[in-house]
Structure formats: structure tokens, C-alpha cells
């Protein structure tokens, strides 16, 4: 029974939502590729309008991301971080929990990693064995700390009804504030000229295989891909993953089937935070070698939301999405140095890309949450 006087904007929104919700996997991949291309095209037009050579700019984008071994490993470095952060977001979003706090969780995970290594280092023999041991300890500490820091908003949502979007955003500020104070105060060595912790001891690093780059190791990428594999298989083949994803699709049906919705929310947030913590550890161990003022860390946790949306919250889809974002991030820093296009313009273009590629998926999710797209949803 169609209501003849449904108002027009709502009907149009319903139609778009319906179309997007009905899109097949291939259509969605097509939409993602198409919107990326369109966004880059608009970026080029803006660059041309600002009086720069768009072709030169386009060339710089490619050169800056894949044009040399250095550019390539830089792209892979960002890709690694985006993969882990994207998976962290995807876990939560897939289960219908909106974890916007990956940034805060990665900061807490990163500092926990660095501190546990520095504190334990005196008790461990120097050299390769000690280094590997400390690295593993650091990763573990980051996973635990990130998980706990995400469990908190999970508990608040599950048992006290606090909106997780708000609490996770607030916890981001708390993490940035406290870790920022600690890194500038008690944790800052006397001889440090910048705001940072002590350096990680010699030997705490990922082994340099294939590529030689002080800020990237293929082992880090392999770790990220392994996490993707574990999460993807866990979601598709385990009973826990089924419970989680079903809760995301239809909480009432999950509850009917014996799933405890509260426990699932807490478990989901914890898992998401554990992966987020790993981002901080990889950043500290592979990229930085110490920990810095968290307000100076890239906004991986926020960009990861766009990464996850572009991937339709599918952990495997996060990999190509991260490669795109990694390449853009990488070429951004290249273009900044090698062309006269102002940095604000580059950020703007990246912003347009994010907007274009993420908007259709974001709209899908909003449509699902708000019931747009007609009665049958």
C-alpha cells in the first residue's frame, strides 16, 4: 500500500537507500572505483583552476606513491597502518557498534608497548633473542591495553546505555591529553630535544626483509595481513563471528538465537580495541622507534573509518582500500616537496576522495540504522 502523500525528499532518499542497499558486491566495487576516479578528476580540475598544471600534478601523485622504491615502501608503510586500523573499525561496524575511538586506542596501545619494552629491557639479555622477546612483549602489551581501553566504552554502552560514539570520541581526547602530558613530562628523557620517550632498545624492531627502509618492514605488512585473515575467517567460520555479525545485522534476531547482546557489545569493542592497539605498537616499533606527542601522530584512527566504509566493513576489502589511502598519503608528502601545489590543496583533494569513496557506504549504513529504504527493511 503506497502512501500517496509521502513527501518527496523522503521518497527520493528512500529510493537511493533502496538502490544502495540492494547493490551487489560487484556493483559496490564498481561504485568505489568509479567514485575514486571521479574524485581524482575533480581534484585535478581544482588544481587547474588554482593555476597549476594538472597533468604534472597527476604525474607527481603516481611518482610519489609508486615511482621509486622509497616511494613504494612509504606507501606500504601507510598501507600497513591503514589495514590494521581499518580492520579495527570494520570489526566494530560490522557488529553494529560505532567505535570512533580507534585513534585513542592506538595511542594507548602504542604507549603501553613502548613502556613495557623500556621497563622490561633491563631484565632481558641484549641481542637478537632479547630483541625478539621484547618486541613480542610490546605487541602483547599494546593488544591488552588497546582492548581494555575499548572495553570501557563497550561496558558503558552495554550495561549503562551510554552512546558509544560519544564516549569513544571523548576517550580519544583523554588518551591524547594524558599520554601527551606523560610524554612531555615524566617519560621525557633529559637529553631529548623534542617531545618523546626514550628510544626503544637496540634489537627491538621488525626484521628488514626484501625492502631496506628504516620505517617499514615487510614483516609489519605480513602481520597486518595475518590479522585480516584471522578476522575474516573468524567472522565467516566461527560461531562467535556469526553471533557478532548477526548482532550487527539484526540485534533482535541475535537475541532470539541466544546471543547475549550486552556481552557481544563488550566483546566486539574489546576485539576492535585490541587490533587498534596493535596499530600503535606497529607505529612505535616499525615506524618511529619511540613514542611521540600523540597529537603529532597521523590521524590513522579517523582515516580508518573512511577505509572501512570504502571496504563495506569487509576485512578483506580493507586491504585494497588501505592501499588507495596509503598511496594518497604517500604521494601527498611527495607532492608537497616536489611541486608548488600548496599543502592545503592536497589535503583538500584527499578530502574529496574520502568524501566520494566513503559517502555511498556511509549512506548505506545510515539507511540501515534509520530504516530508510521503505518498510521492508
Amino acid at each position, binding site marked *: *500500500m*503506497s*502512501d*500517496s502523500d509521502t513527501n518527496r525528499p523522503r521518497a527520493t532518499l528512500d529510493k537511493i537507500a533502496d538502490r544502495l542497499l540492494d547493490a551487489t558486491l560487484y556493483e559496490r566495487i564498481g561504485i568505489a572505483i568509479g567514485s575514486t576516479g571521479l574524485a581524482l578528476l575533480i581534484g585535478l580540475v581544482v588544481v587547474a583552476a588554482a593555476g597549476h598544471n594538472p597533468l604534472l600534478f597527476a604525474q607527481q601523485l603516481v611518482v610519489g606513491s609508486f615511482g621509486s622504491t622509497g616511494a613504494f615502501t612509504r606507501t606500504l608503510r601507510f598501507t600497513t597502518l591503514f589495514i590494521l586500523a581499518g580492520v579495527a573499525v570494520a570489526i566494530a561496524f560490522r557488529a553494529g557498534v560505532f567505535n570512533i575511538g580507534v585513534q585513542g586506542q592506538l595511542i594507548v596501545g602504542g604507549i603501553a608497548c613502548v613502556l613495557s619494552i623500556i621497563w622490561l629491557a633491563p631484565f632481558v639479555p641484549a641481542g637478537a633473542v632479547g630483541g625478539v622477546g621484547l618486541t613480542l612483549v610490546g605487541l602483547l602489551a599494546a593488544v591488552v591495553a588497546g582492548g581494555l581501553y575499548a572495553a570501557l566504552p563497550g561496558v558503558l554502552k552495554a550495561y549503562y546505555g551510554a552512546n558509544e560514539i560519544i564516549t569513544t570520541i571523548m576517550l580519544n581526547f583523554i588518551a591524547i591529553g594524558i599520554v601527551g602530558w606523560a610524554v612531555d613530562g615524566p617519560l621525557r628523557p633529559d637529553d631529548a630535544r623534542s617531545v618523546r620517550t626514550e628510544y626503544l632498545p637496540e634489537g627491538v624492531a621488525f626484521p628488514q626483509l626484501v625492502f631496506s627502509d628504516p620505517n617499514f618492514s615487510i614483516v609489519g605488512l605480513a602481520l597486518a595481513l595475518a590479522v585480516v585473515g584471522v578476522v575474516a575467517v573468524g567472522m565467516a*567460520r*566461527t*560461531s*562467535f563471528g*556469526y*553471533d557478532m555479525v*548477526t548482532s550487527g*545485522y*539484526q540485534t*533482535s*534476531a541475535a*537475541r*532470539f*538465537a*541466544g*546471543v*547475549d547482546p550486552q556481552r557481544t557489545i563488550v566483546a566486539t569493542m574489546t576485539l576492535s580495541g585490541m587490533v587498534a592497539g596493535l596499530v600503535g605498537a606497529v607505529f612505535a616499533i616499525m615506524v618511529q622507534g619511540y613514542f611521540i606527542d600523540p597529537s603529532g601522530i597521523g590521524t590513522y584512527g579517523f582515516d580508518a573509518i573512511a577505509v572501512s566504509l570504502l571496504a563495506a566493513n569487509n576485512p578483506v576489502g580493507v586491504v585494497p582500500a588501505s592501499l588507495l589511502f596509503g598511496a594518497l598519503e604517500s604521494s601527498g608528502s611527495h607532492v608537497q616537496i616536489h611541486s608548488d601545489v600548496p599543502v592545503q590543496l592536497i589535503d583538500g583533494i584527499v578530502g574529496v576522495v574520502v568524501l566520494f569513496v566513503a559517502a555511498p557506504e556511509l549512506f548505506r549504513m545510515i539507511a540501515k540504522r534509520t530504516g530508510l529504504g521503505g518498510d*521492508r*527493511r
Partner: protein
Amino acid sequence: MVATDPPADDPPAVRLEGITKTFGDVVANDDVDFRLEHGTIHALLGENGSGKTTLMSVLYGLYDQDEGTIYVDGEPRTFESPQDAMDAGIGMIHQHFQLVEPMTVLQNVVLGHEPTDGGLVDERAAREEIESICSRYGFDVDRHLETPVEELDLGTRQRVEIVKSLYRGAEILILDEPTAVLTPQEVEGLLDLLDDLRAAGHSLIFISHKLDEVLAAADRITVLRDGEAIGTVPAAETTEQELAEMMVGREVSFDRLARTATPGEPVLEAEELRVTGNRGREQVRGVDLTVREHEILGIAGVQGNGQTELIEALTGHRRVEEGTVRFHGDEITETGRRWRLEAGIAYIPEDRHTEGLVQAYDLVKNALLGNQTVPPYVADGWIDWARVTDHAEEIVEEFDVQPPNPAVDAASLSGGNQQKFIVGREIGHEPDVMLASHPTRGVDVGSLEFIHNRLIELRDEGLAVVVVSSKLDELRALSDRIAVMYEGEFIDEVAPEAVTDAELGLLMAGQRLEGEPSEPEAEATVDRQPGGDGDR
């Protein structure tokens, strides 16, 4: 099967000729002919999805037909919109009322057709007009003219809808499943009202899938099946059996299956149960309940009297505030849903759309719903999708789910097929108790018969079964005893043969029957009525 045509010089109120309407590949109406004579009630009978509502939506100007012609009083007409249909004297009472709830009855009735006086709404003229309509047909709606619609019960709202159509000058009224939301008493009132409207010269089309109602209300009955008009019969010359067979296209059995055993040990027991509803109000107020092996306990009641909360307390979905639940004699009050599910307490939920199925999942994934911890589908937390797929195929085959393809999304199935799948899956748990909440709500006759038979088979196999329903015929057909729930209590328990529908209706409205003990006898062994007629 075709009724004799009246003399040709009196053109019918409505004649539909060769109406065909398709939606994509789906043929909703296939070359349908239909005629509504003046001053008669004509029922349009068919299963869900047989095309009744589509046909009437074409007549009401909501859809354009692909082919065919509409005649009103012998004149061919084209309706671009419901407004055109209204102008031609056709009114439609939708299943979901089209009323603005915060506005008063008066405002709703005149909405869009307000009498004006100098540019202002002339409330006095409106009131006089409505009062004259009400007194002409004996409606009580004029008593509530200043009441916001949201404060009225559903039966009154429906009468407001009818008055609204009459106010707009409707001579021909289409009522889409008008009894779906009403209590038995309200249904009777509605049927009387339809009689009065017919006596006043109106012509009515009554859409329904309930056989007893169309037989009671209509002069003539047209049966639709799969979008085609199967035939038109005078109500006086047909039977439920014949109509059901026309609807379904094969023989249908309404007889109760004979019992094969007498009730055995108690399986599920509740004592002094108190449960709080979603809004913090106590919805179950001290219920005692026992259901035994080889027995079906029916729970009757008007929706919202605590049945939902009671069942959820038994399934483990809702916390018990006070009282105890026992399963095979052991107390299980504090256990959750998953424990009880694994222990053998199966549940056919009230709401198949949001609870029973994940709409976006295919049937294979839905076959796992509730089986996430149950071997062999899951072992040590790992899902064996091959076995789950086999299970989904078994359900689809054994329970005749259409289309017979486990790879389709649940959302694409019709209501009856969704329900058959759920029933099949829940029976697949091999439970000791089956709790079924409105197991056939919105389900067509064919599926209804099938589900009833399965529930009775379960009883005969030795299960304890609890059926909550607001349909009295369903409770009568299934139950060995019927407990009536009113405002959170079992106010009485009766044997199905020992009461009339009217008596059950009174109990559901909270009135005790004369000569009954005032305390409910819920602790009951089945109280066999010696005078019960021998249909089993």
C-alpha cells in the same frame, strides 16, 4: 460455480473486466473479472499474495492496471488517483488506518474536505454533518468527536475510518482485512454495521482470508488464487471446505487429529511468576502454569495482556522478577536463552521479521540461527557450513518452503514460507517443549493447516506444547486446554469444547463466566469435560 447473473438492465455498482496488473515479472492480477451488485456485500477471498489488495488498489486508483477496464454503474472509468475514485463514490478502508493520531476524530473525518465559512473551518457544520451520518447508520463515533484518535481503541478507529469515507460521499466501500485487528466482540459489531450499511443501499467489498467471516458477512464470494479469479459463489450455497479448496487448489483438512496418548509428566512449570515489561510495568502478575508431555496448552488473550512477557520469561529471553520456572522438575529460573535452547526449550517467536529470521541472510545462514552452539553444525566454535547447508535443504524440503532454494534471502520469502522455515528450524532442535507465539499470524490457509498439523504431531510424539494466539479457532483446533490471560493473570482455564467463542471473548475481556469458581484453576491436570462433544 458461477452465480446466476442478475438482469442485464441493472448495471452493477462496479464491474472489473479483464484486469491484469504486473510488477516486474510478478503477475499480481491475471485477467480478473469481478462484479459488485448494488446493495450487496461481496467478499474477496484468497491467501496472502493472491492479488486481492492489488485488485482493489487498481479499483481505488492507487495502481494503474496494465490491461482491462473499470466500470462504475455501467460507465467505463479511469482513475488516476484515489481522489478520482473518491469522486466516483468509492471509499477504501485500509488495513493500516490512515488517521492522524494526535488529531481529534472530528478533524480526521473532515481532513481535506473541511466545510468552510468565510475561509475558516466551519466546525459546527462539520459536527452536524457527522452526527447526521452517525444517527443514520447507528454509529457511536459522534460520542468521541473531540477525542484524539490515539486515545481510541482499534475498533472505534475503524468506525472513524468508515465515517470518514461516508462523509466524503462514498457509496461503494472497500474494506481491506477489516477484522485483522479486532477482538471477537468487535468483529461481531463490525459485521452488524456492514449489514446496516447494506440495508441503507451501500455496496461493500470485504477483503479477507478468513473463511468463517466471509461466510457470515457476505452475499457473494469471489475467490482469488495466484492472481486469478477462481470463481464466484453465493455465500448461502457454499461451505468452508469448498472455499478453502478453491483458495488452496487442493483438499484441506480441518479435522483435529485424534490424540494418541494422554498427558504424561510435567515438563515445564512456572510458579507465581512475576515479570516486568519493557516499560517497567509489571506485565505478568503471579501466573502458575504447568504443561505436560503429550499436551498442548493454549493461552488466549487480547494482545498486550502479558502473553509476550510470559512466553519470554519461559524461553529465557526475559528476567523473572519473582517466582520460579522448572524444567523436568529442576529449577531453571536464572538460566539464559542459550542454556534453555540447548536444554530443549524451542521457541517460535511472535515476530518472524525481526526475531525469527535475519532478513538479509540467505536460508543457509538462517538455518544456523539458534544453532550456533549445537553440534553437529558447530564443533568447538567452528561452523561446519556443509552440514548447515544440508540442514537448510532438509528444512526447505520437509516443510515445503517456496521457493525451494536455500540460497535465497529470507526477505524474499512470503510470510507463510518464512514461518514454515522457522517452524522447521525450531522443530529441528528436537526439543522437549515447543513454545509457539502466534505461530500462524498472517499465514495463508495452506501453511496454517500445515503448521497446525506439525504442532499436533509434536504433541503426539510426546512434546509439551504451549500456543499463544489471539485467534480463537486456532486455539480451539490445537489446545487440550485453554488458559485465558487478562491483565497479567490467568483468569480462567477452560476445555476447548466446553466454551463458546462468545464465552472466550468475555473471558478475554476480563469478565468471569457465571458458575465458574472465582479462582483460576491453573495448576491443572487437564480437566476433561464429560459432556465434551466427541470430535476426538
